[in-house]
């Protein structure tokens, strides 16, 4: 079986006018084994 996740996430966001921005990035690679509860991706300033 297979699960496909489709979601919106920040690609860039100015926070309160400052110059920092957020961007979603995957923290996996194709072929990686992953377990439920582990991070697929994060968006940090």
């Amino acid at each position, binding site marked *: *079986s*297979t699960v*496909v996740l489709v*979601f919106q996430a920040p690609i860039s966001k100015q926070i309160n006018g400052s110059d920092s921005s957020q961007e979603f990035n995957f923290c996996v690679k194709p072929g990686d084994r992953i377990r439920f509860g582990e991070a697929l991706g994060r968006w940090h300033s």
Partner: protein
Amino acid sequence: TYFTKKFQNSNARHSSLNGGTGNFQGDSFLVPGATVATLLMLGVLHARRMYQDKKSDELREKGVELEFQPDVKASFLRLLPLRSISRCWGYLTTMEIPVWLRPHVYRAWGRAFHSNLEEAALPLDKYASLRDFFVRTLKEGSRPIDADPQCLVSPVDGTVLRFGELNGAGAMIEQVKGFSYSVFSLLGASPSLPTTADDNVQEDHSGSITTTEKNKKSWWRVSLASPKVWDPTLSRPQRGLFYCVVYLRPGDYHRVHSPADWNILVRRHFSGRLYPLNERATRTIRNLYIENERVVLEGLWQEGFMALAAIGATNIGSIELFIEPELQTNKPRKKLLHSEPPEETVYECEGVGRMLKKGDELAAFNMG
């Protein structure tokens, strides 16, 4: 040759012994010969399969990506009654196994499919059938959930096949190198699926700024529905649409959890085919994910739109929703030939659909 000679000798011996009949012993010998031939054939097929898998693993390690390549076997699969086969398999796996035999059967399954039996919540002899074992829960604490508030967690155990960002109205997801399918076909033509960055303005190809009604609608729908209050100090948020495909092997833990705090608004059930979903099938069967039986959940999370498609396979044809236990999948279909339109349910309770926290149990795949 060995068996033929042995058979002829034993035949000759028997005919001399009991006056020329010799038919009874000769026939009885034929049965082991047929069994041996069948076992030999299965052995050869398995060895060939292992050789092919090893070859594709070596290519993958070298970074060579196998391309889409339809073959005769894929066309042959179209002729098989895969849904009926799947239901028969499901019926067999519901058979109760004698208590003393259960640990041996589940250990054999664990060895064959690399399952980690230590994590099973119950002792092995408590799972009455293979189907009960397959949908097992895990011991408390087996899957710690990433507490980072700015991360999305995997909803299942499995292997990450592909991921990336979807751009443009076409929004295609690559099934395998050389073949892609549209996210609209996968999820169903959904009005809330944003097709580009949901910012109210977007650069079009001529570089001029255009505003699209659709984005406005999807943005206002997101902003009105999402619990967060619109904060004018924030500049316009730019959001992209991403996807991730995770393949679950037969030995993996097969329950599905919520990848984030999520309001599920709509459920769509596509009663499709049940092709196998293994690596070879993704390389040889066209439109695999949009032809197979699947359940799509669609809703909103803090960053906007979110949808999850749980896709069944021949051996794992059932998808059970804990938020809608009455949904039945992989049932006999009325119309055999063409595929039926998806059956849709809008979750209206609490006014904003079914609220789930990150990590909550959502669904389970099961056999048959």
